[in-house]
């Protein structure tokens, strides 16, 4: 299996393989977003970031956009376009001035998957926070809809503002994407969801790695408590046997 290597200042050394979801977790200010931003080539980092064995600078920008996409945590609140026009931006790397039939097809499809198809003609500015979030997710997902393999998606807190149903929906879409031979790197706040969906975890605290590796090895009370400075306990969810984290001291009745 081909691996992609990331190295930042020798302190963080991450690898994401094909078919894997890596979740970056940690308390506020741990540097999760910065790490993601460096990995996605937004900020320059000392050291080397290789994607498919090639440095980002050596890629052609438009070609790279076929393989790599990023969902940012902060998005512009005021964009005077319709929902479908914004989702269509995800197809910009694929056409010059006129979108092709395939582009419209992908846009329609991802809008349905992210449950915003009924909003397609609404203006973006009239949407709620969670709806806007889904519009950008649809845009990012439609960007990587192609026949290429070994694609990489970065998502910075993709579940913000989303209700329970849509949180799971989005994570399932990401899992599907990854199962087609791609990779995903996510920053997540909901630890139980992270544990359920991520294959690997990177636990960050104040810019340093507390622990990283396969989820079942990392998702343990000692690591989580140390990272978050808060006592915690991990149970097995009786319904689906996924790990479930609960924070706080045990209080006797």
């Amino acid at each position, binding site marked *: 299996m081909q691996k992609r290597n990331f190295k930042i200042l020798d302190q963080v050394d991450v690898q994401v393989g094909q078919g894997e979801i890596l979740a970056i977790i940690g308390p506020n200010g741990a540097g999760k977003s910065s790490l993601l931003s460096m990995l*996605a080539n*937004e900020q320059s980092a000392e050291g080397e970031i290789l994607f498919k064995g090639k440095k980002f600078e050596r890629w052609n*920008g*438009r*070609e*790279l*956009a*076929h393989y*790599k*996409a*990023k969902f*940012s945590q*902060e*998005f*512009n*609140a*005021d*964009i*005077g*376009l*319709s929902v*479908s*026009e*914004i989702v*269509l*931006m*995800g197809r*910009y*790397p694929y056409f*010059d*001035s006129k*979108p092709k039939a395939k582009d*419209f097809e992908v*846009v329609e499809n991802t809008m349905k998957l992210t449950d915003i198809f009924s909003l*397609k003609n609404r*203006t973006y500015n009239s949407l709620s926070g969670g709806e806007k979030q889904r519009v*950008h997710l649809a845009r990012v997902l439609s*960007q990587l809809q192609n026949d290429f393999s070994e694609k990489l998606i970065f998502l910075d807190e993709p579940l913000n503002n989303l209700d329970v149903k849509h949180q799971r929906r989005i994570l399932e879409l990401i899992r599907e994407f990854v199962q087609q031979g791609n990779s995903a790197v996510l920053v997540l706040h909901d630890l139980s969801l992270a544990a359920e969906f991520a294959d690997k975890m990177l636990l960050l605290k104040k810019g340093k790695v507390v622990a990283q590796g396969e989820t079942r090895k990392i998702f343990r009370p000692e690591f989580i408590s140390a990272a978050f400075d808060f006592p915690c306990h991990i149970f097995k969810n009786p319904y689906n046997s996924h790990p479930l984290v609960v924070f706080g001291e045990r209080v006797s009745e």
Partner: protein
Amino acid sequence: MHNKPGIYIIGGFITLFFLGLLSLLIGVYQFESESFIGMVKNGIIGEDTGDNSDWYVFSQIRLPRVVMAMLMGSALAVSGAAMQGMFKNPLATPSLIGVTSGASLFAAIAIVLGNYMLQLLPDFLHELLISLMAFIGAILTMTFVYRMSTTQRKTNVVVMLLAGVAISAMAGAITGFLIYLTDEEELRNLTFWTLGSLGGATWVKNLILALVIGFSYLFLINKGKALNAMMLGEQDAAHLGIPVEKVKKQIVVLTALMVGTCVAFAGAIGFVGLIIPYILRLIFGSNYYMILPLSAVAGSILLLSADTFSRTIVAPSEMPIGVITAFLGAPVFVAILIRYKKSL
């Protein structure tokens, strides 16, 4: 889902054509020839019609002026739209952020300093030098204002507009000083530099304008996708494969080139770059894929109408064209303020 600009552009050109014809026919001077078409026909094939003043007014005064109005209106509207995309703000226009004043100042300096030297140059080079200086003034101010007011995601509108006010004040003061210092006739006209006029239209100027505009549009008109994506934020645009820095550089250089040339030849005609994109946004949303090409046609229509109006409303005198564009533009300015009050 995806509007096509083509049909609107064709409609715009047809409107423009008839407006142009109308504008050629009306004016202080009344053509004496019995048939306008006959006069033009005779003029072109070089036959002596017995009345050469008709042909002269048509070919050397009215037609160049109509053409210049079309070219400049188009250039100013497209410059405004492109700048608004780059600044991510509907108030970014050449006149409001001081680019026009910067260009005026440098054009005035060129006229004063080149007082003697310029006289010796052939017409074409003379005009070219002045427009080149205006271009330098425009690019300096634009770079300055952009650096001061813009960060990654958003433009600080207050800084942008106040920087424009400061630059306009400074450049205006120096230009005014030069105007009263010199007895150079080309510069003596303060109204020209503050409100603009298309009265000085010649074929040489039109040729330079056409070259500048043609070159700029080659790169600017198809920037719709890039400017749309930049509304997301520049980093997100880069993730979509848009070469953001390159696009911004092209916009700065090419809009400065167009605005500089317009200012050098017709003074400071304000608000065209504000009015046209605003109206287009009302109809098509902020989709630059539509706004950029349509601005090119709509700007021509606006400025040609304004110029025709300005030279007929107080005939035989002429009203400065900037009076009319400001009359239309100021309410648009207020409308933008009200509409974007929260997000500016």
